[in-house]
């Protein structure tokens, strides 16, 4: 359990390798092994969703997955979503709609919403509420998050046309 082995994977389009004990969680590996502290850990038992990342296009709780299980996978985290000059429409919409307060649940919320809008581009309010119900936020009351995802969906659909 404690003998490290090298884990190789693609993170945000970049090939990365680092040592991890077999018991190391993917969340800890991203944060401590690769220095990607944008992925937050809120409960370590898979309920709050703050640690949500995309592994091969699917949202996962990185606190419920071992780093060694991600060997050879393609992982997307908040750091790969968009920079200061090329923000993702979801980041822009969260900003404009006040979809965040303390910012701690935000990376997980955004990655959950990325998966939703990539799989269901025309998602409506009810689908959005259902989708983000996988993640806990204690600050916003959710309304502005729902509105932000809706606004981003409309913008992304507009751009796609």
């Amino acid at each position: 359990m404690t003998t490290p082995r090298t884990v190789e994977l693609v993170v945000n389009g970049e090939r990365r390798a680092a040592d991890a004990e077999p018991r190391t969680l993917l969340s800890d590996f991203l944060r401590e092994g690769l220095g990607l502290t944008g992925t937050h850990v809120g409960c370590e038992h898979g309920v709050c969703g703050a640690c949500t990342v995309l592994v091969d296009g699917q949202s996962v709780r990185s606190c419920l997955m071992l780093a060694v299980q991600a060997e050879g996978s393609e992982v997307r985290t908040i750091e790969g979503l968009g920079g200061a000059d090329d923000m993702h429409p979801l980041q822009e919409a969260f900003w404009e709609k006040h979809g965040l307060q303390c910012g701690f649940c935000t990376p997980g919320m955004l990655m959950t919403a990325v998966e939703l809008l990539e799989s269901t581009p025309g998602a409506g309010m009810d689908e959005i509420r259902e989708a983000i119900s996988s993640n806990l936020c204690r600050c916003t009351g959710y309304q502005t998050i729902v509105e932000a995802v809706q606004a981003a969906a409309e913008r992304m659909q507009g751009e796609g046309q």
Partner: protein
Amino acid sequence: MYVGQAILRREDERFLRGRGHYVEDITLDEPIAHAAFVRSPHAHAAVTRVDTARAVGMPGVLAVLTGADWTAAGYGEAEGVWPVKDMSGADARTVNRPFICTDGVVRCVGEIVAMVVAEDRHQAQDAAEAIAVDYEEKPANTITARALDPDTPLVHPAHGTNEVLVTEHGLKEETEAALARAHHVTEVVVPTNRVTAASIEPRCYMGHHDTVNDRYTVWTTNQAPHIVRRYFTKSLGIPEHKLRVIAPDVGGGFGMKLYHYPEEPLVLWGAIVSRRPVRWVGTRSECLLGDTHARDHHTVGRMAFDEEGRILGVKFETLGAFGAYESQWNASITNAYHFTMLSLAYDIPAIHTTVRGVYTNATPVDAYRGAGRPETIYQVERLIENGAHEMGIDPLELRARNLIPAEKFPYQTAIGIIYDSGDPPALMEKARALCDYDALRAEQAALRAEGRWMGIGMVAFFDMAGAGPVKMMNDLGAKIGCYDVASVRVHPDGRITVFAGSHSHGQGHETTWSQIAADRLGCDIDHIDLVEGDTDRVPMGIGTWGSRSLSTAGMAVYTAADRVVAKAKRMAAHMLECAAEDLDLADGEFTVKGTDRKLSFAEVANASYHSGDRPADLEIGLEETSFFDPADCTYPSAVHVCVVLVDPETCAVTLRDYWAVDDVGTVINPMVLHGQVHGGLVQGIGQALMEECAYDPESGQYLAGTFMDYAIPHAEDVPSFGLDSHFTRALGNPLGAKGAGESGTIGAPGCVANGVIDALWHLGVRQITQPMTPKKIWRAIEDAGRAQQ
């Protein structure tokens, strides 16, 4: 003008890109060691042996420390920020929350018995599990309502009672007389459920001892870093000038992250002993167990009405939970915030309350968003709701008859507090229109005819926000000065850094404080940066809690900026050879009135630092500090209305609609305000419908140690909100602003509860304790049905 505008938040970019900087994210040049704790698995037990021998030699272990080591090191105990005082003014039966068990007895599940410091978190946890602790279990009680029963085990036998203190407030004889002469008296037993803030970021602390310079640094998930620094003088005996406390980005606080928790001095102690920086990050179970819990008041209330439904008096008797020990601010709930707000938004001539603080073998209770007001509003409003139904008067109509009319402000309540400004009838009328009240009642009747259960809940209340003034809060028991501080530093290039003693953990101060400063300084908001959360950089501060920061720290920003402008005008007047009174400041320029002669703010700033040509009595530099002590608390008010649907098959509650009409005085940023109201409402709704820090009543074991067991609302559990406002200016600060952080949280439990009771009244249901889960609702309907047979 920036004030009043929905400026997008200047702090958001880093959060949106995963570049927030929370305590757990911080790296140092040295490798950081980790702490793990051994905690009591029992609600009450004697600790007969702590054997650390196996742990000491385990891989990576740097230090193993126990209560005996703490005592040997000569460290201190916690001290109350708001210490308990009995009615006589004498110290009550205070037992402060221990940092680590030093007296051989643990009194609640989760109390710390030992600490391990190791190279990494897993090694620390492995070694903690290797520490052998022998316990002899003792009888325990976790139920507040039973605390003073004759056969209940004593938490602190030396005191001979579980009673911490008794306080009485209000007009006893007048209230008894009102109850005696009343046309109708309503009585309800209204316990408030034990809940916890459950910020999504767990508590996390890191300590570092710089042995070369003999200085200490603590990084902490805390809302008031200067107050933390103050209490390290008591715990580890570190003088304030030797300790730097940094509270960086903090992932939600809600009052719960205000305290000098046990783990905070312990990690610094671990750092001192191991000569390494040491970090602890709480597991969710440690947080749900060790974060302060809240509410848990057991109250019996009686309300007297005349024939028209006018309230003649209200009387309360409360057992207020302390848990196993006194947490630092607990007495602010029972002694300052509970009783003061008992009049809500109603003109009630006689109020009397008796509060008995009690110990139980449960996690210490302290302030959480609202602290005392959620209990009070819920209790008073449950009485009004039942009274209206019992007297056959429409609940909104009965409330409207009792609201404090606008012309009575400033309004002196029967409990002694003076509400400075407000207009409750205007709030009620807006709420009535917003929800289309008459249509809702018609819909309720139509649905009931179909066998469907719809309820309309409402509340109307005041909040006491903005803690200060210093004297008033001292008189209510605070041992800290409730002012706040800001420095406005103009750099020689004219750009500005504002240093504030508040702390933003979601509230958006980087935006709102900059809005205030930019207006006062007549400059571009992008020329301003804000520094908070660092005791080495910010001169002093009391922190962010109790919806106080705008009317204290925000006002300190306002005041310091005005002083900067006054000084800069003197320099500009000297340079322009005019009188300071003849100068206007706008858009970054000083202009001589009625002329085109002008100087830029930056030119004046530069000259303030670097020019020898200045008025003889004008000091060099352009920086001002304000210690702002407000003239009064602020008294925001609101009316909430909601619609609930109770499923007759499953007894599940759907919260269909929720409207809130708020009076928070002058608004700095309506977007931020709405965010505060939304988030607050959902925390209050959680208290009403699902949240409970549950204990097994027999064993005292904690049953809510994960997010699978402690339910907080998801997006699907709550509706979108309908908000409106009717603003009256606060009189206690020149901005005219009132606190806005807690209004949602304090109103929602009562509003939702009244909605559920309104939906089920025709079935004979009169009261259901919160959280109103389907099981409890089903049971209440069954019991009511049997009672009616």
